[in-house]
């Protein structure tokens, strides 16, 4: 039995509407492949990367500014995508940098999702003043650009952290800042969907037989509102990655010794005028490809899950 169950499950996934729609959309396939390649390369960076850019002892400053695929005049080393101002291999810094960008992006989205879903479920199900308070908070937050809110949260949080731990805590502060600036989207969508669902008969029935409201929310309503949440989550991931890059570009994100893609772009743009284009171009292209691929996947998912567009 168990031998046949696994393939049949895989087959059911392959045969599902979603998978069918995926197979029918070349854009979705390309985006999916690009995103998957970057994510896998980032995840396995320590295995793939030619050097470890976080290990200062492996760096040689004299390798600095080596152009792509050319031999350095002093050290004789060559780098596929060139070396940056500190003699770090650009390919390796991108792989490790994408890792940090993706980690921050995923964590921030999950954080925002948990926060937003909780607030949305409670607001939608309880209604009344709870709903009013939560949604007014959301409205206020929506009237500010989210990057500004992230900057504010980042600044305030840094103030509370002792100076000696700021560098190690920077990445977590970043996640919280981006997550907190992004939860509203989730909350509003979940609230709307919850209000629709709670009037439906299966919820009424569950209430009548006395099911605990928390159980109703988690077991009955939540699975039915997850569709739109996944769509916003995917697009939110692209936005979170860009938000992290923006903050790091502004110099308030992760420290330069452990660069994310945004930090690499910040470092690279200093050398654009002097002709060392590879330090900026390759991280920028990677960020662009990653954000675009995830965004397109999000668009596709929205269309695929929306019955009216089918």
């Amino acid at each position, binding site marked *: 039995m168990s031998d046949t169950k696994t393939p049949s499950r895989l087959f059911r996934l392959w045969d599902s509407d979603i998978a069918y729609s995926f197979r029918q959309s070349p854009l979705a396939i390309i985006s999916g492949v690009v995103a998957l390649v970057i994510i896998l390369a980032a995840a396995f960076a320590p295995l793939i990367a030619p050097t470890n850019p976080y290990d200062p002892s492996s760096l040689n400053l004299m390798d600095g500014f080596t152009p792509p695929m050319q031999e350095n005049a002093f050290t004789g080393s060559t780098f596929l995508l060139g070396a940056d101002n500190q003699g770090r291999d650009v390919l390796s810094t991108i792989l490790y940098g994408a890792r940090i960008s993706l980690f921050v992006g995923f964590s921030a989205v999950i954080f925002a999702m948990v926060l937003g879903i909780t607030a949305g479920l409670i607001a939608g199900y309880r209604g009344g003043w709870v709903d009013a308070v939560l949604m007014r908070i959301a409205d206020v937050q929506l009237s500010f650009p989210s990057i500004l809110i992230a900057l504010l949260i980042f600044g305030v949080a840094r103030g509370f952290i002792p100076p000696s731990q700021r560098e190690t805590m920077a990445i977590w502060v970043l996640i919280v800042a981006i997550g907190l600036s992004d939860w509203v989207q989730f909350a509003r969508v979940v609230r709307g969907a919850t209000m629709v669902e709670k009037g439906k008969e299966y919820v009424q029935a569950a209430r009548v037989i006395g099911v605990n409201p928390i159980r109703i929310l988690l077991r009955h309503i939540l699975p039915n509102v997850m569709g739109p949440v996944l769509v916003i989550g995917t697009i939110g991931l692209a936005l979170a990655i860009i938000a992290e890059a923006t903050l790091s570009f502004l110099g308030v994100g992760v420290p330069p010794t452990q660069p994310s893609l945004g930090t690499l772009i910040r470092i690279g743009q*200093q050398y654009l005028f002097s002709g060392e284009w590879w330090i900026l171009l390759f991280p920028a292209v990677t960020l662009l490809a990653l954000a675009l691929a995830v965004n397109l996947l999000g668009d596709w998912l929205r269309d695929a899950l929306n019955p009216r567009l089918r």
Partner: protein
Amino acid sequence: MTLLAPLKKSGMATKLATSALALAIFAGSASAETIRWARVADALTLDPHSQNEGPTLAVLHHMYESLVRRGTDGSLEPRLATEWNIHPDDPTIWVIKLREGVTFHDGSALTAEDVVFSFDRVRHESSGFRALHTAVTGATAVDDYTVHVQMEGPSPLYVQNLTNFFIMDSGWAEANDVVAPQNFAAGEENHAVRNANGTGPYTLVSRDPEVRTVMAYNENHWAEAPQVTEIIYTPIAEAATRVAALLSGEVDVVQDVPVQDIQRLEQTDGVHVVTGPENRNIFFAYDVSSEKLASSNVDDNPFAHADIREALALALDRDAIQQVVMRGQSQPSAAPLPPFVNGWTEELNAYSKPDYVRAAELVKAIYPEGFSFDMHCPNDRYLNDEAICQAYVGMLGRIGIEANLVSQTRSLHFPLIEKWETDFYLLGWGVPTFDSAYVFNFLLHSREEGFGSYNGSRYANDEVDAKIESLATMTDLDARNAVIAEIWEQVMEDRPILNIHNQLLAYAMRDGINLAVHPENQPQMTTLTFDN
């Protein structure tokens, strides 16, 4: 008569109109020359006695004036003082003759009382310039234009300390409650921080901190009128943005040109670059005397070990930093003082090649597992400051020392040094007096009564302290130089400071503008000329 009168009138009118037109044309060509000047950072404050710091002084020199100032060739020039002599009967008194007929921007006249007031203010507890004036016991006004400065003992070189000592109006200071200088480290604000009332060639028109400061020519200034009549000073922290601003014509003169852009700018039409050595050395310093470091993973203070300090020096590859980080735009040196300064020698300057193997052995002998600490670095003050620190983090990594780089803006960085909240930091030091005593007083004398305000190394050597104090009153210059050499010998042996290099300066400006590089990086817009 009835016919002539209107004619005569109209003739007068024509004449008037012509002369008005001529005046307008004249005014158009000779005056209203605005210079838009961009630099990496803004003045930290306009209070003239609060912060002894490069960009702050450079801006202040346009609105306030010192008694003497240093010209672009490094010599002393008269400014508000026309004469300065040691009193013929008492070697402990400096007699300063003031320029007559000078007025402050608000119209009040400069008198000896203002100079006496400024001497008191600059020696106040919250002044950032106290170490320069420790030898002064008091100043008195003999008449309206003569001041006697009473020194502790004979101080033949004291006048060198007056180049950044700005004269403030005592009446204005009292009226605006700014008799005491702003306490910058405590985050204090006062009226003088955003307003200025000096005697300088330019008056403050508007100031938006960190955004822009506008100054206009002071018509009542005593000196010959400069070609520049308006200055718009804009701090642009990002190097690429600063250069782009020059190339796009948004600004006329750019200081702190990033070394990687010099070559390209020289090849660009319409702009040119002027370079020259700066009177400033860049160095690392570290806490050598605390029991335990605030940021380290080991229980004692690694920098208290002479062997670790030697390892730090052996790991520093100055040539690599010069070639890659600075692209040749620096003079690597081991001496913690620029070559302009009295006391500098070839021997002090010499440095050996890095030896990572030996350095790693020295570290391993004391800390088999290595150790870690936080390295504090400014990222908007010196040429490629953050990149220098980052490069050294890599070099330390090779000898088993893990440095965590904390780079931040200079207004957060410098207080760490003043408040002793950093274990290891990068600092640049200019020497406005062109004498070693300035370095000793600020960086190496143990911190007490006006000394050692930038001694973030916590270096304290009683013998060195005594010798430093003796310098202030020595009149025999040969003997004095011998003591300076002794102090340097001891300091180089104790290594509280690890020098990296001397900065070279580069100003980029659009063609048609001439501005010389000032060794203290204090460009004087009064000396700027336009090609016609």
